[in-house]
């Protein structure tokens, strides 16, 4: 994985020195609160409901064991002994003191981490497929390009005060695991045969996607951008957005609205025009740097050994078998596996990990996983390269840290935003709803029978919990002083990205769990076979039967 160069280290050191001075200048009054706000945000520091929150970048979700240990240390020294992994592959600390934040940033820098541009109206931390470099379906590893974009977007002088935040995601696979169509810019590495008959790599560029109060799937603005054109193309796009995007209404300021208001063709022509102007300013040296960066992401030297311990444990130990069936994904080398560690123990806060758990995961990555971990946008942790013979020992070690929950992709593997338990924007709680669903279906012992199902919960219309893209999405709102939960069905974050449709009126806090249970019971009765997933049943039958499960038969509804 990427090792910070001297250039990166010098940049972060300088940046942290600047931020330390900014905190002091806020205290002396040299900076007003209004002035300080965007400066702290571009260094990852929010003011939340109860306290400051520091969001630390985990670029494209990749980190090593020592970095995981450092996160654990920070959570114990300056926070409450845990951290929260987010849907943008970052980690949030919920209780830091303002005066401690410069020291926290210095501690992060010592292990090559930072909080730069994890917030504010800037280009945010670049996200990528969490199985990058290990997946079987990949054209190319997206992380070198994501790192190149991180460098280009870092402290970019034109784009530190955009009209609104700007999120970029990169994937190298058709099976989109980075939700690229829900980003301001989504990039997919593609291949084509050039005129001389050689394979050429480039990007499909998708623009104007986003969730929030106006969920829109991104549109293809360029179906093949040559690799070497990426940075000038991104710079042209951001420049067009910076000048054209609305600044009169923050809810209409994202590029998805700019594209909607001006039309894709106009935006494309503006980008192309600006691209032609700035392209000559790029000497091409970025491609040499990209080649250097890519070396850091080479596949680690994988071990050859018998898989027998795996088969023995699989046959003998039902707990191991259950975990292996749900939490493993095929690796491109079939004697290895991609391991997903669930941060969704039944009843726990989705995405939270204690300091002890972080250390355990860091240790296990060092011992069994070539010192590499990933954070997924689904708020789990991944060991991308584990030899199958090591899986029984790994599983046993995870069990001891309450990290062996066998539920990946199942109903209790819920994405949930922090909601009103932490967030100043939230209109309802998310975490208790997630906990209640997970506990209930664990009690019913139904979740393996239900099969693949994505439940995602947002505690307000900003949709940090990606509820629009869930098979069952839950949106918490406040109606007349009470928490109300709306349900959407049929969303999909995969290759066939789709935005779910709202079923109808929302449910109160006490009624949401029974409503979900009615949906599940109804699905189990309607599915054609145990192999037909909830989403497939939903797509086959449409909304009507599910509405009946939730609200009763249509004529009854009218009578009421």
């Amino acid at each position, binding site marked *: 994985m990427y090792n910070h160069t001297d250039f990166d280290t010098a940049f972060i050191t300088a*940046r942290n020195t600047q931020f330390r001075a900014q905190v002091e*200048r806020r205290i002396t009054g*040299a900076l007003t609160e209004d002035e300080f706000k965007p400066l702290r945000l571009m260094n990852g520091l929010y003011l939340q409901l109860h306290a400051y929150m520091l969001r630390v970048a985990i670029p494209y979700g990749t980190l090593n064991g020592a970095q995981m240990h450092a996160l654990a240390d920070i959570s114990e020294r300056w926070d409450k002994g845990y951290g929260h992994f987010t849907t943008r592959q970052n980690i949030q600390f919920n209780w830091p003191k303002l005066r401690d934040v410069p020291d926290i940033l210095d501690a992060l820098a010592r292990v090559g981490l930072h909080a730069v541009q994890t917030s504010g109206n800037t280009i945010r931390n670049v996200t990528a497929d969490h199985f990058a470099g290990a997946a079987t379906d990949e054209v190319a590893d997206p992380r070198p390009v994501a790192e*190149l974009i991180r460098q280009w977007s*870092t402290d970019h*002088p034109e*784009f530190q*005060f955009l009209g609104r935040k700007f999120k970029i995601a990169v994937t190298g696979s058709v099976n989109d695991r980075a939700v690229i169509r829900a980003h301001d810019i989504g990039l997919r590495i593609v291949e084509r045969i050039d005129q001389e008959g050689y394979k050429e790599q480039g990007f499909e560029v998708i623009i104007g996607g986003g969730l929030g109060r106006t969920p829109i799937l991104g549109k293809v603005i360029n179906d093949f951008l040559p690799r070497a054109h990426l940075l000038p193309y991104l710079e042209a796009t951001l420049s067009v957005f910076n000048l054209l995007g609305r600044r009169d209404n923050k809810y209409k300021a994202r590029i998805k609205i700019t594209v909607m208001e001006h039309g894709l063709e106009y935006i494309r022509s503006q980008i192309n025009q600006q691209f032609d102007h700035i392209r000559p300013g790029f*000497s091409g040296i970025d491609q040499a740097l990209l080649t250097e960066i890519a070396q850091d992401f080479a596949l680690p030297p994988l071990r050859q050994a018998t898989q027998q311990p795996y088969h023995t444990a699989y046959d003998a130990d039902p707990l191991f078998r259950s975990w292996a069936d749900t939490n493993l994904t095929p690796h491109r080398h079939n004697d290895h596996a991609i391991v997903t560690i669930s941060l969704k123990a039944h009843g726990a806060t989705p995405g939270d990990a204690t300091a002890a758990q972080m250390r355990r995961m860091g240790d296990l990555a060092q011992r069994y996983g070539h010192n590499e971990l990933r954070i997924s946008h689904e708020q789990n942790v991944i060991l991308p390269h584990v030899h199958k013979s090591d899986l029984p020992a790994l599983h046993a070690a995870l069990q001891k840290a309450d990290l062996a929950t066998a539920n990946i992709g199942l109903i209790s593997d819920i994405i949930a935003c922090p909601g009103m338990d932490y967030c100043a924007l939230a209109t309802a709680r998310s975490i208790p709803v997630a906990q209640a669903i997970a506990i209930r279906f664990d009690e019913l012992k139904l979740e393996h029978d239900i099969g693949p199902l994505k439940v995602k919960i947002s505690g307000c219309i900003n949709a940090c919990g990606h509820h629009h893209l869930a098979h069952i999405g839950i949106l918490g709102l406040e109606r007349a002083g009470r928490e109300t939960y709306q349900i959407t069905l049929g969303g999909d974050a995969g290759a066939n990205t789709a935005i779910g449709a709202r079923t109808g009126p929302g449910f109160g806090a006490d009624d949401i769990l029974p409503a979900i249970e009615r949906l599940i019971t109804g699905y189990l009765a309607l599915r054609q076979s145990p192999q037909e997933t909830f989403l497939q049943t939903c797509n086959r039958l449409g909304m009507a039967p599910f509405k009946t499960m939730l609200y009763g038969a249509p004529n009854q509804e009218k009578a009421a």
Partner: protein
Amino acid sequence: MNVIVTDTGFGDDPFAGKAPDLDIMSDIDPGTLAGQLAGLAMIRLTFTGFADGRGFSIARRLRQLGFTGQLRAKGILADQYTMARRAGFDEVEIDEAMAMRQPQDQWLARADWQAHDYQNRLKGTLDHAA
């Protein structure tokens, strides 16, 4: 009297008493200025507020349109000095109250705007105004 900030700190306005050749706000469409920039000695661009980052892209566009004169930013913070210089501004104009609240040392702390410049490193050129 307003203070002019450059890489060497606070100074008097070298154009004292003279109005800028072009006085624009950061909500202008820079495309409308094409063809009007030849021969201008000084343009002052006032940010509608320090958080209105359009000014940085406008500066870039003015340089792109061939403007080679003095480009002055008004209405930004010391913390934005580096961005302004990299985007193509030559200097920043601040009023006396700002000069009191954010004195010279806070601007000089950001005067090393050529250091730690990722974009310059990736472009492989020393031409910041390009």
